[in-house]
């Protein structure tokens, strides 16, 4: 058994797998249009990698034995799910395989799929904030794509007929305000900004007053990237959050943590500490169009119950999409 799987693993290079998947996809493309197939195409790289491994394992084993579980474990670790989450997933799988007396790896595949789906469930009301008066605070460490995410979101909300305003509360990084300005112009939404190095809390305060006065639907606040272990910067973020709570209690507070999908296990730590600072309501998983597996989202959902609400699958302005766990896991495994 081991021989077989190893040979398989070595012979099927990434390239071959990719062509295989592309063939599959071309066939499907014609049949399935719209969001679902778009997601599949966007996620194709992710799929190759995450399930390239998992599929490999599922295909190269006939019987469910120790070896099989070990290989499956490895494949999931390679997808950045993290050791703890993987151990938990595999443990659950073992128990259920025994309970349901499953004997084929094909059945295990369905089971695993359902396990991951149930882990990644997003509440139905996750996007209700779009139809309310909302202050949307975007937070995260440096370089994950906060400003770009805001640019894309503002465009989408605007197109959906909402009035949108941006607050340039990243007053620290060089030219961050200018970067947001470009996005504001692209989507044609107003921007509230002060000079560089001004107090971000003051910017948010101003923006809230302005949003209230103009009866703006969604106010999106950009913040400076900060590493979660810097106490003073996290305190600053907490202050911004408190200002929003105090100055606009009537508004829905949506706090999106932006995570780079190439990030490894540290993302869990990021989510934990940011959560202590502001009440995170969702996660944005960016840069999923690379070869990164984004499996860390599964770890975060499982450990911290933070739902992924949007995923970024490209540089285009509408390459930021709402996240759907069913579609996501289905797309990751296969479609047929």
């Amino acid at each position, binding site marked *: 058994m081991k021989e077989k799987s190893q040979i398989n693993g070595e012979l099927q290079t990434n390239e071959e797998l990719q062509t295989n998947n592309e063939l599959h996809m071309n066939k499907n493309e014609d049949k399935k249009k719209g969001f679902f197939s778009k997601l599949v195409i966007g996620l194709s790289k992710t799929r190759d990698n995450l399930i390239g491994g998992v599929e490999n394992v599922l295909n190269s084993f006939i019987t469910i034995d120790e070896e099989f579980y070990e290989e499956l474990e490895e494949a999931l670790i390679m997808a950045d799910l993290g050791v703890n989450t993987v151990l938990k997933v595999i443990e659950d799988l073992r128990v259920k395989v025994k309970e349901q007396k499953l004997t084929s790896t094909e059945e295990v595949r369905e089971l695993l799929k359902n396990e991951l789906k149930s882990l990644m469930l997003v509440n139905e009301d996750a996007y209700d904030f779009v139809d309310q008066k909302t202050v949307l605070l975007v937070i995260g460490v440096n370089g994950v794509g906060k400003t770009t995410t805001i640019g894309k979101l503002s465009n989408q909300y605007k197109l959906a007929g909402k009035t949108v305003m941006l607050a340039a509360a990243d007053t620290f990084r060089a030219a961050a305000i200018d970067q947001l300005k470009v996005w504001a112009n692209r989507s044609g939404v107003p921007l509230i900004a002060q000079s560089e190095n001004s107090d971000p809390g003051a910017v948010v305060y101003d923006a809230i007053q302005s949003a209230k006065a103009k009866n703006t639907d969604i106010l999106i606040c950009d913040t400076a990237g900060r590493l979660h272990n*810097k106490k003073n910067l996290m305190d600053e973020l907490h202050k911004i959050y408190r200002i929003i709570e105090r100055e606009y209690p009537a508004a829905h507070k949506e706090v999106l943590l932006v995570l780079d999908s190439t990030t*490894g296990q540290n993302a869990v730590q990021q989510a934990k500490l940011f959560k202590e600072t502001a009440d995170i309501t969702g996660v944005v998983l960016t840069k999923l169009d690379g070869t990164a597996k984004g499996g860390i989202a599964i770890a975060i959902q499982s450990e911290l119950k933070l739902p992924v609400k949007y995923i970024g699958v490209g540089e285009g302005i509408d390459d930021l999409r709402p996240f759907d766990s069913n579609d996501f896991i289905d797309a990751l495994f296969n479609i047929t």
Partner: protein
Amino acid sequence: MAFESLSDRFQNIFSGLRKKGKLSEADVKAAMREVKMALLEADVNFKVVKQFVNSVKERAVGVEVMESLTPGQQVIKIVNEEMIKLMGDDNQDLTFSKEPPTIYMMVGLQGAGKTTSSAKIAGLLKKKGKNPLLVAGDIYRPAAVKQLQVVGEQLDVPVFEMGTNNKPVDIAKAAIEYGKKNNNDVIIIDTAGRLHIDEKMMGELVEIKEQVKPFQILLVVDSMTGQDAVNVAESFNNQLEIDGVILTKLDGDTRGGAALSVKAVTGKPIKFACVGEKLTDVEVFHSDRMASRILGMGDVLTLIEKASENIDEAKAKEMERKLRKAEFTFDDFLDQMQQLKSMGSINDLLGMIPGMGKQMKNVQIDDKEIAKMEAMILSMTNEERANPDLINPSRKKRIATGSGNDIGAVNRFIKQFHQSKQMMKQMGGMMKGKKGRNGMMNLPF
């Protein structure tokens, strides 16, 4: 906290393996399982872990266990040495081409920190008496040119830009001409972030490389990168033949396994580590610090090192006894602070110390604060240092004046000292409770 479970597991190896003699296969296997988990949790790529663990296994079996170590510690010692060796044991500084200008080209994924790193390197070069020129080659990300201009101004380093309507390769070529005319002996080309699988964008870099023939191409890698680090590094290296790596955002609390992955798949040296948001927060990469960080065993490694150097065990025992009995003095405190300081940032160190995670989670210690504390201790008499209870208000006043602090600061410090003494006493007790191991394991530092 991740650190806790991890260090606990390591403690278990030590208590599990007690016998001496040569390392048996079973010893090595047991220890390596934990090492494997530690590396995976630190984001070292799975394949790299497998390879690494296998090669270390081979080396370790049959090795004589040193008198002062347990078999488990002996294995960790070998692991640590091998890791340092793998990540490159010679300090990598910037080198220059024989004929100026020396051209550096910065490449990497989006958000890795290329622009900031470019500026930091320019700052380093300026300090060395060079006359660097920064080149704004990122025409895609909104305001990227502006960002480079702002940081350039902060450093007083010229920035060459041609807006966003020219091809990056043309900007690079024009910049070289400009640099030659203006006596810039080093030219640093910032490029746009791009995915390693984006053929068109990667082609652009290849074109720049062919046209301006950079002396070195540096890949900028976010130290928080997960399993994908190998794909990124391999891909950039295959297409561009990089010369070195800059590791960014190391001031976070990531264990940074990406460093090992990147080095393993490219074989290229990690030259610099970026450790903060200030433009001066860049340092030469230290593979030994990185190894202990990836292994996540802070003090364990230090202890192993010390134990294998045969440092006076009696002295260590004495310190341990002092700690447990809370006879800890200002002299000891000063001693430990100075030892710690030579090892890097206090905050990072605290985070790495097994068992300290919980207690220290909300304690932020500024390195400046440490300097202040040092000054206060140095302003004490020998008697005061040895016997902290001696310090009365008038002595406090003298200490305050002597160290350039106000009396409130002195009061706070003395209170803190007593608190940490108490904490160490508790920790001593805690660790004793877990028993086993040789005496030195009970030291908090």
